[in-house]
């Protein structure tokens, strides 16, 4: 991993990967939407409302996955003090917050016709709402420091502590009574969902994952450019202390 964690090498590699990843994402999203909206059959109990699942479930998976990415990047940042790990955690968080919001909104829109309520304060819904606030709290904390390194360290600790919430979300439907249905894909004994619905779900999930990586790479690249700009500005003020021709302060420190 350390080989890819050099900012200059990261910029070169991500520039080569991004166009392909972008088109792959577009293709997957288009196929996923066609499968979800036209090919998948209506449910025998839920009718056409089941199509909300193809947005709701993949965004819920992404909400958890991206938080795990933030927590692991934070751990890497705390252990190895690598500046790119801080950026990786910080730039993943807004994407995770977006997926969590979509999960909550689409879940509410699904709950009203199927359960007869937009919201219940049960364990599953509440723990996902807590996840959303963890994302927002993390972003607010990281942005609250003038010193970026200190902000990143405080955020990393919050992200790691908040990771306790991930197993709580996953097992909340087994541990407590809830309106929410238990797992039907990631369970012992295999999925209980019909293939005609599982396939669109899978394509949408892969599409959302590809979209996450596309957005993540763009955002990390932006953050690296911002560091170079800051280094050049600093070098313009104090030309003797900083040699910006070497790629800037942030990079020579790595």
């Amino acid at each position: 991993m350390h080989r890819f964690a050099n900012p200059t090498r990261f910029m070169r590699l991500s520039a080569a990967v991004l166009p392909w990843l972008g088109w792959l994402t577009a293709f997957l999203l288009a196929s996923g939407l066609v499968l979800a909206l036209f090919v998948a059959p209506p449910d025998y109990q839920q009718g056409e409302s089941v199509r909300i699942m193809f947005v709701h479930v993949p965004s819920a998976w992404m909400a958890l996955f991206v938080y795990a990415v933030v927590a692991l990047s934070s751990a890497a940042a705390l252990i190895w003090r690598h500046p790119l790990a801080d950026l990786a955690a910080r730039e993943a968080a807004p994407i995770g917050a977006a997926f969590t919001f979509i999960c909550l909104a689409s879940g509410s829109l699904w709950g009203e016709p199927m359960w007869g309520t937009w919201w219940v304060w049960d364990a599953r819904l509440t723990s996902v709402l807590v996840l959303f606030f963890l994302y927002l709290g993390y972003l607010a904390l990281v942005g609250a420091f003038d010193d970026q390194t200190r902000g990143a360290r405080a955020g990393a600790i919050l992200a790691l502590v908040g990771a306790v919430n991930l197993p709580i979300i996953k097992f909340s439907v087994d541990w407590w009574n809830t309106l929410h249905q238990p797992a039907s894909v990631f369970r012992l004994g295999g999925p209980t969902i019909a293939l005609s619905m599982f396939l669109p779900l899978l394509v949408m999930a892969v599409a959302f994952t590809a979209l996450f990586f596309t957005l993540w790479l763009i955002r990390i690249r932006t953050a690296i450019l911002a560091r170079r700009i800051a280094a050049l500005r600093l070098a313009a003020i104090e030309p003797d202390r900083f040699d910006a021709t070497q790629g800037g302060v942030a990079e020579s420190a790595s």
Partner: protein
Amino acid sequence: MRALLGYLAMGGYAAFVWPAYAVATLVLAGLFWQSRHAYHRRQRELERLQQGRTRRGSTA
């Protein structure tokens, strides 16, 4: 036409299905647009700064 309207009605669940897809589309497209826009702005800023440096360097 009737087939299209029938499809859009989503078996009576149109008021729930379409907003769910609309929220997802708006949030993700907005995030993509914002990320792309921020990237290009930084890129232009960096190019301008680097040009300024080389100009100063050549006259010195």
